[in-house]
Structures are given as structure tokens and as C-alpha cells.
């Protein structure tokens, strides 16, 4: 122990100095007080490890000092100095908590021995204290890790079920009750088979324990719930390698299964959509062979034309499919810029005009008086609007009319595309934005398309914070309304004067 600080309280100067001399070569720091009051002052001022005090002193005596120390600084070791005549007093002092006593007169050696003992005791105490602190910290850590485990166990989404070697449930977490739909109460202490109707779970636990190996299963636990569970059952062995129980985790994989099924359905649908036109193209190739052989040339030409169209349609379908999948996966980067609505609409009309002219359809445009801008990715938005206008032309009989108009309401602009087409039946209307949906019937028989155009439009419109609405009356026509938030007009980009000059 380093830097031991010792206080000597005695009204006799000889004693004070005698003690100091006896301990002089030990390297201790020694302070002296001539009575109890002065001693307490020093004790309050600084730290001491050991106090040697006379019992019988004028003013505050040694007992009072001892009391104060026990009360306020219990770590301090007190050694009382007393005359042999007053040994009984020393005994009393010891009972009050003094560590030792020194009889007067004393030899320097004896003082050293007593002080050494006190120091030993202080060292031991410090070590004990250290050990106790370590022990406490250890306990605290164990407590914490136990409660941590408990928390993790309770909060796990997976069900955990622990059984002993006989298949009796010994522990489970709350998720087990929920996922396995346990209704037995209590669940613990009963065989697993008493609480779980599903044989798969019970069998796999038995199998894992009897074979001593991990068993994995996917199963539907009951007829009522349509859950799909994945279970991992692991046997627990002791040090001798004997199976003493099992730990099983159950994971609800219903959502994964559903996504899986949707994916397979989609792949099947895509395959069908690609196969049907290809089958027709192949059939036409056969027909061309036959036709050419039998020199029915007019058929050959017509079939060639149709084959080209169908092949192009197929390629467009694949393009649309790829675009749609890119849009849906969110990997498409939209380069938004403020665009004058009028510009993009006029460009779309220019592009679709040849298609309309071919059918004798007129495309009209009634712009609203106000000029407006919207923040869009030009290419994507042009494709979307073109899909709508081109659809209207496609589904409008020859000689009909397609009318585009715009209106600015609040912070929004409505782009309305109205046609005098064949219309869409009420039963088909909710499905027109579904992928691959196409209205089938006499009127649409000769119209080709991928069934992806409107699905694409919807993705693009929604990616621009817009929305799309459709109203239709069979035999009369269809009206698509696309709504978009207007771009904030900052004076610089659209001078008011130009607006008025419009």
C-alpha cells in the first residue's frame, strides 16, 4: 500500500513525536494533533488511513474521536493509545470499533508492528472491496444477459418451442402460441401432441430426437388457417451425447409462398402471352409454304404483312414488359424537368396522326386558355400520353373522332382524351390497367396489342404524383382523364407577358 497517511492525536508532545520517530523511515505521511478537536479538523480537511489517538485528552477525548470516525469515515483504522492503568478503557474502545491498541509506554517496534497490522488490514480490505465490486459487476452482467436473452426470446417473430426427451413442452415464446395457434392452457408441461393437432410438427420433433439430427420441414399446420410454416427442429444433447430434448423454431412463410405463387403465375401468363402470337406466326409460316406451293400469291402477301406485324407486336410486348418491370422495381431514374403541357400534347398528336389518318379518324385539341407546366420525365410522359391517344385511335371505328382537351383546376391540370370508340363494358373497366388484360369480343378481335400499354401508363402517371381516371359507355366512347400537379411557376421561366400574348 503506497502513501499511507497517519494522524497521531495525543496531548503529550513526547508521545506524538515518539510515534513519528518510530515510523520515520517508513515513508508514511504523518500528521499530528494535540487534542481531539484539532484531530477532527484535520480528518475533515484531508484523507487519513490510520489514526493513532490517545483516549484520555482534555477537551474532546479519544472516544469521541473514535465515534466520529466510525460515523463519518469508517474506512479509517483507529489505534488507541492508552496507559496500562486504563486497559479496560482500551477494551471499551475496541468494542466501539477501534482496530487495536498501544499501551503506554511503548517501544518503537511495537508501534511499527501495530501500524503494519493496520496497513495489512487496510490492504486486505481494499482487495476484498475490489473483489466484491468485481463480483457485483459479474452478477449484474449475468442478470443483464439473462434479461436480454429473455427479451429476445419473447420478441422473436419466429415461434420457439423447447421440449424434453419425452416430447413434453418445457419452454416456448409468445410467438409459438400465435403461430401454432395453441389453445391448450397451460401449454408447458404437456406432450406436444396434446397441443398441436398437426402431426407434421409432432413427428418432426420425434424424428429429430430419435435420429439425433436436425430436421427441416415446410407444412401447412391446419385446414382452417392458410398459413405456411417452415420448421427447423434440432435435438439437444448433453455432454455424453445423449438426446435430452429438442429446440424447434417455426417461421411463418405464408407471405413468401404467396409472392412465389404470384411470380409463377406471372411467368405462366407471360409465357402464354408470348406463345400465342408466336404460334400464330408459326402457323402463318406454314400457310405461306402451302400458299406458295399452290401459287395462291394474294394470300402470301397478306400473310407476310401479318407476320411482320405480329412479330413487331411481339417485340414491342417484350419491350413493354421490360419497361414495366423496370418501372415496378423502381430502378428507372426519372429526369424531371418543367415541361410546357402544350408542347408535349402537340408532339403526341403529330406522332399519332398517321395512325388516325389511316382510319379516317380526326384528332382534335382544345387547350385551356391558360398556359401550364408540369414536372415530368419527357420521354416517359410522351410514351404514356401516346399510349392513351393511340389506344383511343385503335379502339375507335373508322371515321370517328378523338378529342384532347386540358383544364387547370386548383394546383392540378387535367388532360382529357375522349373518343367515339367502341367503349369498355362495366365488367371490364376495373381490369383495364391490369397487365395483359385485353377486352375480348367481336369488336376487338382484329385489334392487336400486348395488354401492357395501360399498365405502363398507370405506372408512369403515378410515378409523377398524378392519377388516372376512366369513364366509358359501350358503343359511345371512352374518356381518359390524366391529372398532374402543376409545376410551381417561378416568374423567370414563364414571363406573364408571354402568357397574355399566348
Amino acid at each position, binding site marked *: 500500500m503506497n502513501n499511507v497517511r497517519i494522524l497521531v492525536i495525543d496531548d503529550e508532545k513526547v508521545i506524538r513525536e515518539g510515534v513519528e520517530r518510530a515510523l520515520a523511515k517508513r515513508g508514511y505521511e504523518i500528521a499530528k494533533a494535540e487534542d481531539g478537536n484539532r484531530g477532527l479538523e484535520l480528518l475533515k480537511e484531508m484523507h487519513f488511513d490510520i489514526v493513532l489517538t490517545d483516549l484520555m485528552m482534555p477537551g474532546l477525548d479519544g472516544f469521541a474521536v473514535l465515534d466520529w470516525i466510525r460515523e463519518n469515515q469508517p474506512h479509517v483504522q483507529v489505534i488507541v493509545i492508552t496507559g496500562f492503568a486504563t486497559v479496560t478503557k482500551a477494551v471499551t474502545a475496541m468494542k466501539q470499533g477501534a482496530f487495536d491498541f498501544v499501551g503506554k509506554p511503548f517501544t518503537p517496534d511495537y508501534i511499527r508492528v501495530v501500524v503494519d497490522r493496520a496497513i495489512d488490514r487496510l490492504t486486505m480490505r481494499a482487495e476484498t472491496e475490489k473483489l466484491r465490486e468485481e463480483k457485483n459487476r459479474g452478477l449484474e452482467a449475468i442478470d443483464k444477459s439473462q434479461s436480454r436473452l429473455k427479451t429476445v426470446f419473447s420478441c422473436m417473430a419466429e415461434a420457439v418451442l423447447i421440449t424434453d426427451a419425452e416430447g413434453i413442452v418445457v419452454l416456448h415464446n409468445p410467438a409459438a402460441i400465435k403461430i401454432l395457434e395453441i389453445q391448450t392452457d397451460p401449454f408447458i408441461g404437456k406432450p406436444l401432441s396434446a397441443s398441436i393437432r398437426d402431426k407434421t410438427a409432432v413427428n418432426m420433433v420425434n424424428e429429430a430426437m430419435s435420429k439425433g439430427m436436425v430436421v427441416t420441414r415446410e407444412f401447412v399446420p391446419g385446414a382452417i388457417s392458410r398459413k405456411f410454416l417452415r420448421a427447423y427442429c434440432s435435438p439437444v444433447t448433453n455432454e455424453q451425447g445423449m438426446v435430452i430434448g429438442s429446440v424447434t423454431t417455426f417461421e411463418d412463410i405464408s407471405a413468401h409462398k404467396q409472392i412465389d405463387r404470384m411470380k409463377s403465375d406471372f411467368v405462366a401468363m407471360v409465357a402464354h402471352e408470348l406463345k400465342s402470337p408466336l404460334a*400464330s406466326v408459326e402457323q402463318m409460316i406454314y400457310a405461306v*409454304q402451302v400458299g406458295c406451293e399452290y401459287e395462291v400469291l394474294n394470300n402470301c402477301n397478306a400473310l407476310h404483312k401479318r407476320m411482320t406485324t*405480329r412479330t413487331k407486336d411481339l417485340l414491342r410486348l417484350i419491350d413493354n414488359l421490360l419497361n414495366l418491370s423496370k418501372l415496378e422495381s423502381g430502378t428507372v431514374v426519372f429526369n424531371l424537368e418543367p415541361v410546357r403541357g402544350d408542347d408535349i400534347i402537340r408532339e403526341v398528336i403529330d406522332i399519332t396522326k398517321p395512325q388516325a389518318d389511316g382510319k379516317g379518324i380526326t384528332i382534335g385539341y382544345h387547350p385551356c386558355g391558360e398556359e401550364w407546366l408540369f414536372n415530368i420525365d419527357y420521354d416517359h410522359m410522351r410514351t404514356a400520353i401516346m399510349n392513351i391517344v393511340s389506344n383511343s385511335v385503335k379502339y375507335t371505328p373508322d371515321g370517328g373522332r378523338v378529342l384532347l382537351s386540358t383544364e387547370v383546376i386548383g394546383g392540378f391540370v387535367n388532360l382529357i382524351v375522349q373518343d367515339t370508340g367502341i367503349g369498355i363494358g362495366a365488367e371490364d373497366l376495373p381490369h383495364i390497367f391490369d397487365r395483359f388484360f385485353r377486352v375480348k369480343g367481336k369488336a376487338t378481335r382484329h385489334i392487336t396489342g400486348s395488354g401492357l400499354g395501360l399498365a405502363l401508363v398507370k405506372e408512369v402517371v403515378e410515378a409523377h404524383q398524378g392519377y388516372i381516371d376512366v369513364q366509358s359507355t359501350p358503343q359511345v366512347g371512352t374518356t381518359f382523364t390524366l391529372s398532374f400537379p402543376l409545376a410551381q411557376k417561378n416568374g423567370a421561366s414563364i414571363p406573364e407577358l408571354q402568357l397574355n400574348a399566348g
Partner: protein
Amino acid sequence: MAEKKKILLVDDDPDFVEAVRVIVESGGYDVRVAYDGQEGLDAVAEEKPDLIVLDVMMPVMNGHAACARLKGNPETAKIPIILLTAVADRVTTSTYTHRDMLESEAEDYMPKPVEPAELLNLIKSWLQ
């Protein structure tokens, strides 16, 4: 010269119908077409064909339903029907159509697209 045998071709894809029509006409038959099951039934009611080539997958009324209606009617039950299907993958088509055929009363079946010589042979054999 004997009168041409009449074949009714029913499929919802106009290009497919056109292609098969060319093939069947090259075999020396008189071909009429319809674009769904109901239209097919109407065409049969109007004029009884000697044989029907009927697609399975069609809107309004599919090929199986149309076939059942034709076979259920004593007036038309004797008309041979060749079902065309492209429902399943080529690999599984045989098993699929085989089961279909067991359940259906159609005389024969072929997977789409149809090879011209095979179709003409099949038509010929059912008309004898």
C-alpha cells in the same frame, strides 16, 4: 366432280384462322370460319359442316363447351371435331391434351401450331 367437303374453322385469333384457312383450302376443302364457340355453334346451325376444327382457348364460349354442346345435340353429334390446343408447354401438351381428350367427346386433337400435312391427313382420315 364431287362437291367440296365443308370444314368449319373456329379460333379467336384472326391471323391463325387465316393461316389455317389457307392450309385447309389447299387440301381442296370449302372453309368457313368463326371466331368464338358461340359463333361456331351459330355457323353450324346455319349450315352443317362435314368437320369442325375447334380451338380450345376462346372467349365467350371455349372449345370444350362448344364441343360438349355439339356432341349433346343429336343433329350435330356425328360431325367429327378436331380440337386444337396450345394451352400447356409443348413438353406437357401430350399429357394435358390426352386428359382433355379423355374428358372431351371430340374425335381428335392437335397441338398448335398445326403442321399442314398432319392436319390435312387428320381431316382426310375423319372424312372417310
